[in-house]
């Protein structure tokens, strides 16, 4: 028995889901409304809710996948996907090991994390200038993994 799914335990039959999926969808509709009318973004932390596999399945089925698929590679992968309902973004953040550390739904025009961050831009600019001036100081590639 090396894998969890080989243990004959059904985690939760689909038919007995907690029914959170439906409530979430209503909440999302409301949040989209707010985005349109007031321009306010909103977020729902999926990990903070006791969602059953069936709830997730229902969410995925209803929201589907849309046009934008973004992948961030920063200390583990993060995928940010616009769902089939424009304005609803599905964030999945993973650690280095590939474990999901956060999963969120965001209602916004464009998720902020996709924007380049001023601090990173600043240090990037600095590196660029160093390159231009032929400064010999060694630079530290942003993607290099650091262990404690």
């Amino acid at each position, binding site marked *: 028995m090396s894998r969890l799914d080989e243990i004959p335990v059904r985690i939760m039959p689909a038919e*007995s889901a907690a029914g959170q999926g439906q409530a979430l969808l209503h909440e999302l509709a409301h949040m989209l409304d707010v985005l349109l009318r007031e321009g306010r973004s909103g*977020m729902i932390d999926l990990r903070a809710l006791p969602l059953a596999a069936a709830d997730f399945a229902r969410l995925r089925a209803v929201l589907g996948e849309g046009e934008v698929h973004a992948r961030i590679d920063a200390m583990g992968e993060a995928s940010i996907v616009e769902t089939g309902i424009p304005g609803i973004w599905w964030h999945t*953040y993973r650690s280095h090991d590939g474990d999901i550390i*956060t999963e969120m739904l965001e209602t916004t025009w464009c998720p902020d994390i996709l924007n380049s*961050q001023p601090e*990173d831009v600043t240090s990037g600019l600095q590196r660029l200038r160093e390159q231009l001036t032929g400064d010999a100081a060694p630079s530290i590639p942003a993607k*290099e993994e650091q262990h404690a």
Partner: protein
Amino acid sequence: MRETLDQSLRRQGVSRRAFLKYCTALASLMALPPGMAPAIAAALGKAMRPSVIWLSFQECTGCTESLTRSNAPTLEDLIFNSISLDYHETLQAASGTAAEAAREQAMKAFYGKYLLIVDGSVATGLQGAYSTVAGVTNLDELKKVAAGAAAVVAVGSCSSFGGLPMAHPNPTGAVAVSDIITDKPVINVPGCPPIPVVITGVLAHFLTYGTLPETDLHRRPKMFYGETIHDRCYRRPFYDQGKFAHTFDDEGARNGWCLYELGCKGPITYNSCATLKWNEGTSFPIESGHGCLGCSEPKFWDKGSFYQPLSGGTWTDSGTLLAAAAAGVAVGAGAAVLSRARQHHAQEEK
């Protein structure tokens, strides 16, 4: 001057985006709205790496193991690396008098500012002689180190509540840290062991806000111990429907029904296992088919069998009840004899 976390991260080549990503996870962990992530990042980024002294008393090192189990950079690492762990018997490279000297130096340099983390209960029997390090009893050591601490974090059920060493009959006179330290803020992070991110979550809060998070009546951070396992359990619908596994291998168990009948203590256990899960978010005991033992609750060792249902009694046997019935019959017979005697008496008096 110690560097800020921002500086430390930048030195390590962590991008702002990556930091934001982890701060989002951190916000989720601390039960804050995900939108708080930038604010957390800002606060955390400016924080100085605080000095931390970690004392281990009557413990099994399970708590340290829990914290250091992951072998890839994780949120825990991120936070853990942002502190300056100036003394930890298991983790530090220094040993012997050098280690002690490092601690003395940190205590002196950061007096009143350092954070004290304790795992293990404190032996008080024989003036604390049951557990000593370098000839000093844990009891004395705790009092001395706590005197200069800004706050104390009791990690694990032993330091929080006494844990296993305090279980009946408690031969060493073990007590919790909070029983000894009463003049400092003490926060308990119980669990046997606690969930690693819960330990780091408390540290993150301390780093972000400079204070310990809000606690419940057992001094546990509400953000992690605010709800029961039961309330957050994915098997809860079965409990509500009255569908229970009767044994560990019956149809109900295979169907993933509620484990209440098998002694699950989820309903009275306040912890985040059901949401944060274990082993890097893989699962938690109930998901693996075993009821919650209630390890993060005070005196969980002494609350009867782990497999006795919560609603079952823990102390009555049929022998006692038979004896009670017999005693009742005897007293009742006595009362009847007395009444008859009074009747007889009344008859004579006429």
